[in-house]
């Protein structure tokens, strides 16, 4: 929070004369096979209380043992975000009573977290934004309380499912650097992309693998930070934006009515689109943090960090820059192509096969994305393989297919699959590249349309389009438009 004032010099979007200030706390569930302090599996969706061992159940005599995989993932995040990775960090106990917290305390990191500082950069429209991180710390998740609407709960009873208890989390905390809900969502999307890109989190928001809490406050420009309210557990980008927008309007209304904002934790109700206070600062618990005597300090040597660095994939920002130089793509295209590891991988493999980066990029941004969006599928599930797309693009590049014809082939590939050349043959989509036949059609069309020819020669460029249209029609749509243009201009020159 120390430098919050200095960042407000950026041009701010004011809402009814108020500046919006947002900070994020994100819980990313780490993709380890077993839990952070036990060997129980982390599988989602299993029968209640089947994925919990004595440590997760907090049975007397059980003790936590650090899962090295969770630490390795924290190092990965630190490296991806340019953070300091603490050589020595400390696990602490956060003490509070709740039925789904088996030990009566959560093992977390308090005074000395494993990942310190760093930043996340992204584009909001054309503007590059950078959000500074305070820290990211390792901690264990709690279990779940199942109330009336569940199989375990009901009849005035609540059920407790401890399958999730002990699942490893990284809590990633930002400075209050964001100034709009759109910026907040863009940050969350970028962070989501990074954690999935470096393989530390599956990013499944429905299953709670990536949960965001937004700290929202408003102030008149130049004033000190306002009192914040924390919106908990935003588990979709859509709700995130709605919740923040509602919260901002609500806070501004309060202030304009002369009321003070009280620090509070609020929940967003997607059905009503409103936020509602859960608890205020007065009933905030004293967590009585102290270093966990069951766990020695976490020591991460330089050689471990270097080993992890060596295993890191190329990061999206670096890859996008490489795409711009290596494939002569625009920053926009390069950024779009690096939206996920799989997408970027698809692009590079197809490009290497056909040598047509721009065409592949256009097809991915166009037809491929359109069809994927229609089917709500990701690139991994694309029925047209990168090999097929590369061949299709090659057929455009070598003049066999017009763009329109290629789209027809693509549709067949998408729905039925098959061999590209066979589809071209069967559908008669091959372009007419025989200049002899085309020259004759061009001459015939010129002869049959003297009026258009005169108009063109008089300076009406549109008249040429009419001639091209006639030639295309005569050729049954198979003429190569570029060739037609060249022949026409030549004949009329």
């Amino acid at each position, binding site marked *: 929070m120390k430098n919050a004032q200095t960042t407000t010099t950026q041009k701010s979007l004011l809402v009814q004369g108020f500046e919006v200030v947002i900070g994020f706390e994100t819980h990313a569930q780490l993709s380890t096979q077993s839990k952070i302090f036990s060997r129980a599996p982390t599988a989602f969706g299993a029968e209640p209380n089947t994925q919990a061992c*004595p440590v997760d*159940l*907090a*049975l*007397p*005599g*059980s*003790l*936590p*043992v*650090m899962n090295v995989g969770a630490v390795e993932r924290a190092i990965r995040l630190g490296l991806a975000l340019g953070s300091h990775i603490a050589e020595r960090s400390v696990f602490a*106990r956060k*003490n509070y*009573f709740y*039925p789904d917290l*088996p*030990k*009566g*305390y959560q093992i977390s990191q308090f005074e000395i977290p494993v990942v310190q500082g760093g930043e996340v950069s992204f584009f909001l429209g054309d503007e590059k934004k950078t959000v500074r991180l305070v820290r990211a710390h390792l901690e264990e998740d709690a279990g779940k309380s199942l109330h009336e609407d569940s199989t375990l709960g009901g009849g005035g009873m609540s059920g*407790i499912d401890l399958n999730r208890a002990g699942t490893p989390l990284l809590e990633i905390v930002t400075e209050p650097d964001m100034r709009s809900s759109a910026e907040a969502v863009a940050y969350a999307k970028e962070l989501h992309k990074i954690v999935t890109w470096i393989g530390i989190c599956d990013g499944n928001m429905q299953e709670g693998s990536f949960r965001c809490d937004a700290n929202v406050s408003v102030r008149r420009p130049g004033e000190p930070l306002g009192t914040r309210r924390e919106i908990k557990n935003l588990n979709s980008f859509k709700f995130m934006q709605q919740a923040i927008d509602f919260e901002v309007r609500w806070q501004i209304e309060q202030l304009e009515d002369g009321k003070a904002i009280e620090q509070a934790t609020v929940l967003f109700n997607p059905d009503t689109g409103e936020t509602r206070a859960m608890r205020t600062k007065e009933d905030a618990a*004293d967590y*009585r*943090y*102290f270093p966990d*005597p*069951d*766990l*020695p300090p976490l020591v991460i040597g330089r050689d471990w960090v270097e080993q992890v660095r060596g295993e890191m994939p190329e990061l999206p920002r670096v890859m996008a820059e490489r795409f711009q130089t290596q494939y002569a793509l625009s920053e926009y295209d390069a950024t779009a192509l690096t939206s996920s590891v799989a997408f970027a991988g698809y692009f590079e493999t197809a490009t290497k096969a056909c040598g047509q980066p721009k065409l592949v990029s256009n097809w991915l941004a166009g037809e491929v994305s359109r069809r994927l969006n229609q089917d709500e599928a990701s690139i991994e599930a694309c029925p047209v393989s990168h090999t097929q797309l590369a061949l299709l693009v090659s057929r455009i590049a070598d003049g066999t297919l017009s763009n329109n014809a290629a789209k027809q082939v693509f549709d067949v590939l998408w729905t039925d699959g098959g061999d590209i050349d066979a589809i071209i043959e069967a559908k008669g989509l091959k372009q007419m590249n025989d200049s002899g036949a085309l020259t004759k059609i061009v001459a015939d069309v010129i002869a049959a349309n003297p009026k258009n020819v005169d108009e063109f020669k008089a300076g009406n460029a549109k008249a040429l389009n009419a001639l091209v249209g006639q030639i295309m029609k005569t050729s049954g749509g198979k003429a190569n438009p570029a060739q037609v243009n060249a022949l026409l201009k030549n004949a009329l020159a």
Partner: protein
Amino acid sequence: MQDLHLLTVAQTADLLQAKKVSSLELAEHYLARVNKHEGLGAFLACKPETTALAAKAADAKIAAASSSNLAPRLTGVPIAHKDIFVTKDFVTTAGSKMLQGYRSPFDATVVTKLADAGMVTLGKLNCDEFAMGSANENSFYGKVQNPWDTSRVPGGSSGGSAAAVAAGLAPAATGTDTGGSIRQPASFCGITGIKPTYGRASRYGMVAYASSLDQAGPMARTAEDCALLLSAMCGADLDRDSTSLDLPPEDFSRGLNDSISSLRKLQGLRVGIPKEFFADGLASDVRTAIDTALAELEKLGAKLVPISLPRTELAIPVYYIIAPAEAASNLSRFDGVKFGHRAADYKDLSDMYKKTRTEGFGEEVRRRIMIGNYVLSHGYYDAYYLQAQRIRRMIADDFQQAFKNCDVIAGPVAPSVAWKLGDKDRKPLDDYLADIYTLPASLAGLPGMSIPVGFGEGNMPVGMQLIGNYLQEGRLLNAAHQYQLATDWHTKLSPLMTGGAA
């Protein structure tokens, strides 16, 4: 053989290996004595069939052994476990109503290791609730009597363990020591006990009291027995206990007779005598016994070196901040939700917690939970907990200073002999103050032991404490063993040991 219970662990093991006695005979003999002395209050749980099965298995192992393929030395020797160690075969209560009838799905590592060494479990032993106490008067399952004088306390918190060994109800027992809970009851009951360096024995399966202090150790009649037992109990357990030391197993029996002189067995040993351990507050009867023992060490060739542990008195407030802080957190899991006691009637969740914990925990446990939560709470943490941690480090540093001039440190275990049961004049604070000589080594994580060195007021045993530097258990046991070879205090038998045939 009616006097089987007079044998040490080493003697018992020799008879077993020589097939002169069977493990089953031993188990039956001891279990009969447990029944006979039920009034002592030492045992909480026995399962004769389970014990008999283990004994028969041990006998089969010995029968199958050959001179080239011996059964492990401790095979068939009976032992009983402090009820702080969780066990699959026996209910584990930790002396608390909170865990009445609790069955653990796993065994503590120490229990597993001793079973793997061939030992046969007789049952579970009474202790102060969650190991909090110095007299074993805090158990929900009743007080334990001292076998030397049944109107007196056996010490605590491993009071059941000490009483069982001193009364001949088991040749050996496990104990746990957080602030003196092995050494002080060993002293009060005239037996030998050792707490190893913090991290030597796995804490996995010990119901946690204060995690940074808890250590398991053996309690038996001799240093030789303790060496045998400690060798079997210790060892790295890195997959289950993150505070376990990464050290290979060690045979502590091997160095028992090491000496540079064949006549003066402790020739050259520098024994540090901390002046703070002999200041006001040490009862004269205890002092006399300790002085005599120190003179005996000198006769064996040891050199007494005056040293200072200047923060000895501070160990009391430091311990009674850190241990309750950790305990308050460790005991939060006993909330009535998953296992253990739950109140019968409650209005809501908060009421359920309050009633469950008020009913399930005894007075001393509740007191320490309150102290612990107080010292950790916002605004007090720095002044209490952090300050206590700083002084704890200084106490450890003081020992390192002292060990520059000595090899082991010797002094009393407790300021007095065992006091009377149910003494209404004693306040909790009196018990806290009586821990003064055992707390410093606990806070520093050093190994410490108690050996019988005489008798004081009321003919009650007096124990001498030996403290070693980190991982110097071998040196402690060597000094204790040589002392025991030269003296016979450890062979003195309590009236319950000798009184009548079992």
